[in-house]
Each structure stands twice: as structure tokens, then as C-alpha cells.
């Protein structure tokens, strides 16, 4: 079968598959403007009962965990006692030191009850209770009150987790269902690992940010380079996206060797939690030597007995800023001649995409990034 035959059979196959669907055979649906997920068919609800139970269990566990953590660390009178103590023991010095513009130093120490300050108490903030969660072998520290589940689609898939604060993700008007922090185990996803990593700049990092095709988000990638998480190398990128009605700042770490992970934070208000999680994460040990996917500009090519030794200056496709590099990272791959197309020689200066199974290069392709 030649390529033309294959293409023809594909067209026939898709047409045949689609031909089984006609308007009369579709199940009746309500007007979409009145449609809600809760109005889905009974069959579909049944499909989701297990995740729903699991999500409920997670919420219960989180609530219990929060209660236990709070009991453990909280002051017996956490809300009233610090404020009361501050006002009655040394009101002038405490209040004036933190609120000089709104609370004069001359505020009588004897009248706190009739002139309550509108400023917060000055006792140092207690660290929020935390808990550790294990996701595909990665142990991550997050606030105890956060849930590990899916408020969006990705969070309900195997290998994908949605980490969210108890009151839901802020900025929800712009990003309904969006996770505060998105964790993906590419190894759990399994055979998709290579493609998921190839998607990482696009599928995870730049996806649908403005929610309309006709609006081109203006972007600026501030940093692109390598970092380490628990001693393992991770690709790092930080970028900002400006849409007509809202902005995003994405921070993404991709641990691209097995076992592979993507950690993504799209909303700056959760950045502190995200960075704390990254800094304290423990990951499974690396089990294979090579990145599952890589892109870069070829800087050197040498022939070997079995193929080519190719050095790349790693680069990212970021949607608008093609081939962005802010921190040059050089990587070298041994590419078997058997995976190369004869008519596509590797030349210095060209951009190439490398696919591996973690141990050897399984594909190498010229790319436009």
C-alpha cells in the first residue's frame, strides 16, 4: 500500500465512521442554553459515579486533615486573643508600629473597645497547616485545606491532578474549572509520554489562554532553562500572557525523564504555594537517562558508526516567540541512522525535534519551533 492509497483509505474510513451519525439518530438534547452538566443522561452520570465518590472522599479526608491540623497548631482562642492581648498590653507601640497613617500613636490605651482599629492584628502570621500528598510517587507539600481532585477536566483523568484551595480557584470568571496547580504524571499516562512532553509547551503551557481563536494573546516568555527538583533536571519556563480581559502568568516545570512529571501554575496568586511545593517536592528517582522529547537548534553533527552524534542548543516553542531561549542549555544525542529519513540530512543551524523512549532515540525530525 503506497502513501496515496493509505490517504484514500483514511478518507474512506473516516467517512464511513461518520456516516453512522445522522441527525435523526442522535439522542435528543435539550436546548443548549438550558443544558447543564447535571442534566446529562443517566448513563453518563453512572460513568462518573466512581470519580465523584473518590472526589467526595478526598474532600472528606481533606476536611478531617484540616481539622486535625488546626487542632494541633492553633491557639485555643485564635481569633480574639492575639488582638485583645495586643491592645491591652502595649497598644500604642504595637499599633503605631504597623499602622502609623491610620492609627495615631496617641490613641488612648484605655479606649480600645470604643475605637477598634480597622487594621489586622500585628501578631506574626502563623504558618498555614500543611500536608503531604503522594501523586504517582511524587510527594508534594500543599496547604492542608487544599483539595487534590479535579475542578476541571484534566483533574479527573488518570495521571492528572488538580490542586485547589478550599474556596475554589480565584479568577474563576476567566478560567472556570481551571486548577490552581496542575500536576501531571507523564509516566502514568504511559504511552502518551512522548507526546505529552512534546505538548508541554503548547498543550499545557499555552493552551486556550484567551478562549477565543481570533484573539491573539500577546506573550512574553521571561525565562526558559533548566532547574532541578529534588535533584532531578526539569525544564523551566515562565511566561506572561495578556488577553483582552485578563492576564496569565504561567510557571511550568517539566521533569522530562522517566518517571516524568509536569507541574504547572497558571495563576500568580497561588505562586507562593506552587514554589513551596516545588522546593520541597520529593520525586521518584530517575530511571532512564534521556529526555523523552527535546527541541533545539543543531550546533554540531558528527558521524558515528551507527548514525550521528548531534548537539542541540535547546529551544522552546512558545506560541508566539518561536525558538525562545533565555538560558542556553546544550544537550547531545546519539541518533541511529535507522530513524532518519534519507532525504532529511541534519544540518547545523536547523531546528530538530528528538523523540526517545528514555533510553535511545526513536525519532528525529526537522521542526519549526
Amino acid at each position: 500500500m503506497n502513501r496515496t492509497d493509505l490517504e484514500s483509505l483514511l478518507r474512506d474510513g473516516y467517512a464511513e465512521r461518520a456516516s453512522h451519525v445522522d441527525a435523526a439518530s442522535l439522542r435528543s438534547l435539550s436546548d443548549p442554553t438550558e443544558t447543564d452538566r447535571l442534566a446529562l443522561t443517566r448513563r453518563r452520570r453512572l460513568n462518573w459515579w466512581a470519580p465523584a465518590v473518590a472526589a467526595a472522599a478526598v474532600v472528606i479526608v481533606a476536611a478531617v486533615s484540616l481539622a486535625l491540623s488546626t487542632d494541633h497548631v492553633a491557639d485555643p482562642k485564635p481569633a480574639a486573643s492575639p488582638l485583645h492581648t495586643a491592645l491591652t498590653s502595649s497598644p500604642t507601640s504595637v499599633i503605631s508600629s504597623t499602622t502609623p497613617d491610620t492609627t495615631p500613636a496617641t490613641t488612648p490605651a484605655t479606649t480600645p473597645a470604643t475605637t477598634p482599629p480597622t487594621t489586622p492584628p500585628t501578631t506574626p502570621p502563623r504558618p498555614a497547616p500543611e500536608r503531604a500528598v503522594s501523586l504517582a510517587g511524587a510527594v508534594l507539600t500543599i496547604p492542608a485545606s487544599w483539595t487534590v481532585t479535579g475542578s476541571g477536566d484534566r483533574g479527573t483523568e488518570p495521571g492528572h491532578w488538580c490542586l485547589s484551595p478550599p474556596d475554589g480557584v480565584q479568577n474563576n470568571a476567566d478560567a472556570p474549572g481551571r486548577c490552581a496547580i496542575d500536576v501531571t504524571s507523564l509516566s502514568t499516562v504511559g504511552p502518551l509520554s512522548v507526546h505529552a512532553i512534546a505538548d508541554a509547551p503548547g498543550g499545557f503551557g499555552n493552551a486556550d489562554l484567551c478562549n477565543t481563536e481570533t484573539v491573539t494573546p500577546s506573550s512574553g516568555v521571561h525565562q526558559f532553562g533548566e532547574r532541578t527538583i529534588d535533584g532531578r533536571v526539569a525544564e523551566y519556563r515562565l511566561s506572561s500572557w495578556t488577553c483582552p480581559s485578563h492576564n496569565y502568568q504561567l510557571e511550568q516545570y517539566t521533569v522530562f525523564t522517566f518517571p516524568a512529571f509536569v507541574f504547572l501554575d497558571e495563576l500568580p496568586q497561588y505562586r507562593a504555594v506552587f514554589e513551596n511545593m516545588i522546593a520541597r517536592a520529593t520525586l521518584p528517582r530517575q530511571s532512564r537517562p534521556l529526555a523523552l522529547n527535546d527541541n533545539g537548534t543543531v550546533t554540531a553533527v558528527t558521524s558515528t558508526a551507527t548514525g550521528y552524534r548531534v548537539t542541540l542548543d535547546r529551544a522552546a516553542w512558545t506560541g508566539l516567540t518561536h525558538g525562545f531561549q533565555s538560558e542556553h542549555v546544550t544537550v547531545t544525542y546519539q541518533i541511529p541512522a535507522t530513524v532518519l529519513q534519507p532525504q532529511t540530512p541534519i544540518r547545523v543551524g536547523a531546528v530538530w525535534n528528538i523523540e526517545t523512549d528514555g533510553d535511545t532515540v526513536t525519532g528525529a525530525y526537522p521542526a519549526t519551533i
Partner: protein
Amino acid sequence: MAVGPGRVVDVSALFAEHHLALVRLAVVLVDDRAAAEDVVQDVFADFVRHAGRLRDPDAALGYLRRSTVNAARSVLRRRRTERQHPHAGDTGTIEGADASTMRAAERDRVMRAVRNLAPRDQQVLALRYWAELSDTEIVHALNIAPGTVRSTISRALDKLERILKDGPE
């Protein structure tokens, strides 16, 4: 009807005009009619909530198409994982396949092989060979790098040929 900032999107009209085509697109992507209908129903349900942010009503179809592709990708991801523990009795047959002719048999063999491709490869092939989208439209639908559409298609066809020759990896 959803009202955006100064613009109006008639969701009911969009539904009437494009629902069938989007279900067909989902069917060729996920190869499961019920799942395809679920996908498109979810897409429209989400669209109703988000349409107020859509600045250009003319972009609605593109948005719906992209949402359908993304939702179908999620179905494929879940299914890919499930395939690591295949159900007994899953023969991989295509519903309604006409095996009475050699070409139909060959066509069905190709479509079964397609199911062994990665979701991204399946998407790009479906968008090109069923939806007949242009390179630019595929870039928008899949949010992939401009210039990689043809190489992605070529790569997917290479993999498909290998599967047809040697069997699934």
C-alpha cells in the same frame, strides 16, 4: 442566547447548525458514538457559560471545534490508559464495518491501526482527512506550532504504515 461585551452569540442557532458536524468530528476522533455525543454536549454546555467572553461571534465555530478536539483528546487519554488493561471481548472491530469487499476490509484494517496511534496523531489525521481542514485551521484547532502540521501528518502516516506492516508497538 449569550451576550458578550457588545456582541451577541446565538447559541441555539449554533447548536442547530453545527451540532451534527461536531458529533461527527468527535466520532471520528473517539470512535464511540455515545462518547462523541457526550463530548459535544459538554462542549456546548461549557460554551453557554463562556460565550459571554467571546469577542467575535464569527469565532464561535472555531472555538467549538477546538473544544471538541480537546475534549476528545481527554477521552482518548482515558481510553489509552484503560487499554493497558484491555477488556476481554474487545475485538477492536469498528461498528458497522462492511467487510464484504477487499477495500472495506483494508479500510477497516487502516482504521483499527489508527486507534493505536497517539491522540495527537489521530487528531491531526482526522482533521486533515475527514474534516479536510487547512494547515492554518489545524494549527488553530490543535494549538500546535505553525509549520509542524505537515511534519506531524507525515510522521503519523509513517507510524501508521509501520503499524500496518509490523503490528502495534
